[in-house]
């Protein structure tokens, strides 16, 4: 079932090394659907930064996400990378809503959403375990900052649901949980062990990992500089934005630390946060520009329309 590089595409299909075109199209369609849903959720995340100008933030975030070279390719391929980031982003969005609750009921419902979707994310791909860690960290920070009953209601489902979902959707681990998990982890070690046979793609040191990360995620130094500017802007409103910042930094650190080979799909989990920060940078610039322009052209109320009977 492995692709034979010495054969033509048609010969590979005939030999059963690759699925025929109609099956390939059918297999890719659900991924495209999830890519579109991912764009939708990223657009909604724009409204977490500004209720009025959220659409500007959203459009920039979606634009940066879709124009990223990794998304252009992986957004169509029939693999589990896009499902993992879609579930991760829904989970982070739920976490943001869950800590900006209006009632205990809302905190609990979004807590369930966060736990459910982070469980689905880690079930789709093991490296999405970073999202489970992120959501729990967000819950703990929230609990530390506010210490109310509602904050416990948010974190509780996130402690139970991810593990439960992971267990339910993996029947092969039902009879022997520990062996099942060991086999999954061994598979990751098999991938890591391939570094010796692929010296050009192997990442041995932290320097190799950082260089590969910068090239795969940021592409050039201009985008890196823009991203750093965005992080500094987000820091100014950290109390509002910290769920995204926590998620982004945990995922990026995890990708840098644990990626054994310089393969494109290992870097996809870092792309949403890259797009969110860049979208935030341009979104906040245009928002302040727009606000300044409207203030400049606004006619002061007291001079243009004096109230009857007023001294002016």
């Amino acid at each position: 079932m492995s692709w034979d590089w010495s054969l033509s595409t048609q010969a590979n299909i005939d030999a059963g090394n690759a699925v025929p075109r109609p099956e390939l199209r059918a297999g890719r369609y659900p991924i495209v659907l999830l890519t579109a849903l991912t764009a939708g959720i990223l657009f909604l995340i724009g409204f977490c930064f500004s209720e009025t100008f959220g659409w500007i933030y959203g459009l920039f975030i979606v634009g940066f996400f879709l124009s990223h070279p990794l998304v252009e390719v992986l957004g169509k391929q029939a693999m589990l990378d896009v499902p993992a980031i879609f579930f991760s982003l829904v989970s982070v969005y739920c976490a943001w809503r869950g800590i900006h609750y209006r009632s205990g009921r809302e905190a609990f419902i979004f807590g369930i959403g966060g736990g459910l979707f982070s469980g689905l994310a880690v079930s789709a791909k093991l490296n999405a375990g970073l999202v489970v860690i992120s959501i729990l960290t967000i819950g703990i920070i929230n609990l530390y900052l506010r210490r109310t009953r509602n904050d416990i209601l948010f974190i509780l489902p996130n402690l139970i649901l991810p593990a439960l979902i992971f267990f339910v959707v993996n029947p092969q681990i039902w009879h022997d949980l520990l062996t099942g998990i060991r086999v999954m982890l061994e598979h990751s070690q098999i991938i890591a062990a391939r570094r010796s046979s692929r010296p050009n793609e192997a990442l041995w040191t932290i320097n190799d990992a950082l260089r590969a990360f910068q090239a795969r995620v940021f592409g050039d130094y201009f985008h890196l500089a823009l991203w750093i500017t965005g992080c500094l802007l987000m820091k100014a409103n950290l109390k509002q934005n910290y769920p995204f910042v926590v998620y982004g930094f945990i995922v990026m650190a995890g990708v840098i630390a644990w990626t054994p080979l310089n393969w494109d799909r290992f870097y996809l989990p870092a792309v949403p946060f890259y797009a969110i920060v860049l979208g935030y940078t341009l979104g906040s610039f245009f928002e302040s520009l727009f606000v300044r322009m409207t203030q400049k052209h606004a006619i002061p109320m007291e001079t243009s329309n004096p109230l009857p009977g007023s001294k002016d």
Partner: protein
Amino acid sequence: MRLAANALRKSAKWLMTGMVFLLVLILFSGSLDSYRIYHPDETFWIRSGQWTFQKMFIEKDFSSIQWTKTYTELFSHFGM
């Protein structure tokens, strides 16, 4: 008045989200049967997905030991 404005803003937000979704769906749906961006793992995921669907929804076979045995026989070479 304020309630109506909020409701309108909320509807506009969901309408724009829907439009973004549809636009991306259309943009990404082109030439899905092309092997130009093909990755050899795609065949594995499609085949194992078909197998999982067959076991879960058609045969309704949830025998964990059997799952592990058959899955290993069919797909254990993945990543080797």
